[in-house]
């Protein structure tokens, strides 16, 4: 507990006294132009204390610019950034109780691991003994004991990443920004580091904002995800909401794989929609948040929600939600280990992908190319999107 108090002192400003419903961070209509290019276009966002928030988007969508505005390396042309109620939009980086972990890690090559971690503490004017204690604590936190005297170029990529993390955490910032923190690591290391970051964030109770272009990374780690496209924040949702109820076609395609069928609304009985699609015939959808105003719609269905059956065994009991059946021929089989993705060429003209988990080791019954199948999915599992 005593340690916690010290941390607050180091963070320059005391921890804000937040009202119960006041967000830690409020971005209010932030705009940033680079010449004629609008990098961030009117982003408004609230982030609560203790959240693990991910900014997700393709490269060039403005997510890094937004993060740099939070760190203070860019000043917004319009809008406010409130941290604990104070507008910090024009504050310089060293005046903010926010720290950042850089994509390149930006470790100081002329300083040892210890001096890198202590750098921010020295600038905060912390006492010598306290610095040593805090550095030791940070080194233990990121499991780098025995490496304190090494220079960054004597460390592996994973170790450098840990030093960067320890250095950013050492000042106990109110907000930690992570710019693509795992992009330079290989897949296995990335996965274990993701788990460690989540564990650390929970344990420290700190607020993390991570920028990533990797939707799996965002889904794994974040409690909420903000998807950005062309400078705009297009959806803010939990990972599950984002995946199961994307707000637009673009988001549906950006987050995970999806089958899309374009068509027109034929009928709506207050509960079920029937949409006549060009590539797959009429499809029935149960959709609570219907954009009925529009006639042109898309039906979206995730591959793992599309099941396959042999053509003969088509007669299912017609109970529960309505089932959409699409007849076709398997045109491609892609074995991925844990699952297999089948591409089915539909008789109606389009194609549909179905991902099926490989639950048994030897599957004599697996579908082969050119096999006639029925691809089916329930009306509950698909989503209607505007075009």
């Amino acid at each position, binding site marked *: 507990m005593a340690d916690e108090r010290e941390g607050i002192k180091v963070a320059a400003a005391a921890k804000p006294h937040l009202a119960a419903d006041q967000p830690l961070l409020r971005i209010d209509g932030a705009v940033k132009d680079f010449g004629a290019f609008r990098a961030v276009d009117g982003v408004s966002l609230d982030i609560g204390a203790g959240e693990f928030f991910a900014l997700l988007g393709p490269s060039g969508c403005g997510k890094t610019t937004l993060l740099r505005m939070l760190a203070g390396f860019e000043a917004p042309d319009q809008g406010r950034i409130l941290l604990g109620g104070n507008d910090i939009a024009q504050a310089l980086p060293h005046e903010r109780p926010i720290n950042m972990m850089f994509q390149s890690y930006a470790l100081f090559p002329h300083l040892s691991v210890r001096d890198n971690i202590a750098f921010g503490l020295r600038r905060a004017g912390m006492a010598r003994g306290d610095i040593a204690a805090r550095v030791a604590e940070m080194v233990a936190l990121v499991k780098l004991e025995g490496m304190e005297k090494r220079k960054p*170029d004597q460390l592996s990529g994973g170790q450098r990443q840990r030093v960067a993390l320890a250095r950013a955490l050492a000042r106990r910032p109110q907000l930690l920004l992570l710019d693509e923190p795992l992009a330079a690591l290989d897949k296995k290391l990335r996965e274990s580091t993701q788990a460690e970051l989540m564990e650390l964030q929970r344990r420290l109770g700190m607020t993390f904002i991570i920028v990533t272009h990797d939707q799996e990374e965002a889904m794994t780690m974040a409690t909420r995800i903000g998807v950005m496209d062309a400078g705009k924040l297009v959806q803010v949702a939990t990972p599950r909401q984002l995946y199961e109820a994307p707000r637009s076609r673009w988001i549906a395609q950006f987050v995970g794989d999806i089958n899309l069928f374009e068509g027109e609304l034929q009928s709506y009985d207050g509960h079920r929609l029937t949409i006549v699609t060009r590539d797959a015939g009429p499809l029935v959808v149960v959709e609570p948040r219907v954009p009925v105003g529009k006639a042109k719609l898309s039906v979206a269905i995730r591959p793992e929600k599309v099941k396959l059956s042999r053509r003969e065994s088509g007669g299912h009991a017609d109970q529960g939600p309505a089932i959409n059946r699409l007849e076709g021929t398997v045109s491609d089989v892609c074995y991925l280990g844990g699952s297999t993705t089948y591409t089915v060429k539909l008789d109606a003209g389009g194609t549909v992908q179905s991902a099926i988990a490989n639950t048994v080791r030897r599957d004599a019954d697996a579908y082969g190319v050119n096999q006639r199948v029925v691809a089916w999915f329930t009306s509950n599992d698909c989503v209607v999107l505007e075009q």
Partner: protein
Amino acid sequence: MRKLARLSRFNVASLALGLAFLYLPILILVIYSFNASRLVTVWGGWSLRWYREFFNDGAMIEAAWMSLRVAVASASIATVLGTLAAVALSRGEGFRGRTLFSGMLYAPLVMPEVITGLSLLLLFVALNAERGFWTVTIAHTTLTMCFVAVVVQSRLGSLDRSLEEAAMDLGCNPVRAFLLVTLPLIAPAIVAGWMLAFTLSLDDLVIASFTTGPGSATLPIRIYSEVRLGVKPEINAICTLVIGLIAIVIVIASLASKLSSSQGESAAPL
């Protein structure tokens, strides 16, 4: 440790020829500086006679002292100005005409020395400045500053910008970030720039002869005027001393940069 590739006979021969081409004339000069004979081309046994002559030659000593003073002063001024120029050019984002200034910085590198020397002479005459130590120093500063700037700028260019940002993020204002992070990292380039400026100033003849005044000849000017009357073995001795000095400076510089930056990155692309 990386294994050294084995050298073939051809490699050895070409290496030996190349080194001989570069260093044989210097070696001969060094050997003949210990020649006892008065005739430059006739070997008369070993002797330190010409070194003694040099140390008793007041005018020559004075010229050498003048050269050293000019070299140290101009290299130091050029290093400060050149480093500042490099920082401004590679970091000043809102600075209009940066490309133009960058280009202008390179101009003295390719400008014939005669033109630089002549234009400086005209300037000093127009300003009615008394020619001597300071005019030569200023002239050498203008010549060597761009070399320093180029060396430092290339080092700054290869430096990750986010290092400075990280320093600011961790509580440094921009000036402190520069002093605590950027400066230590570009220090080897600054040292290399100073060395380069020092040696350039030490061996410059053309610009110095335009900008110096009576009674303040630099060593190259002095040597040149002596040689016109015939090469005295004493010149060999002076040259050997200069070579020795430069060799020591280079060894110290490379040791210093090795110690200061254990990152294994070369200080400057020269």
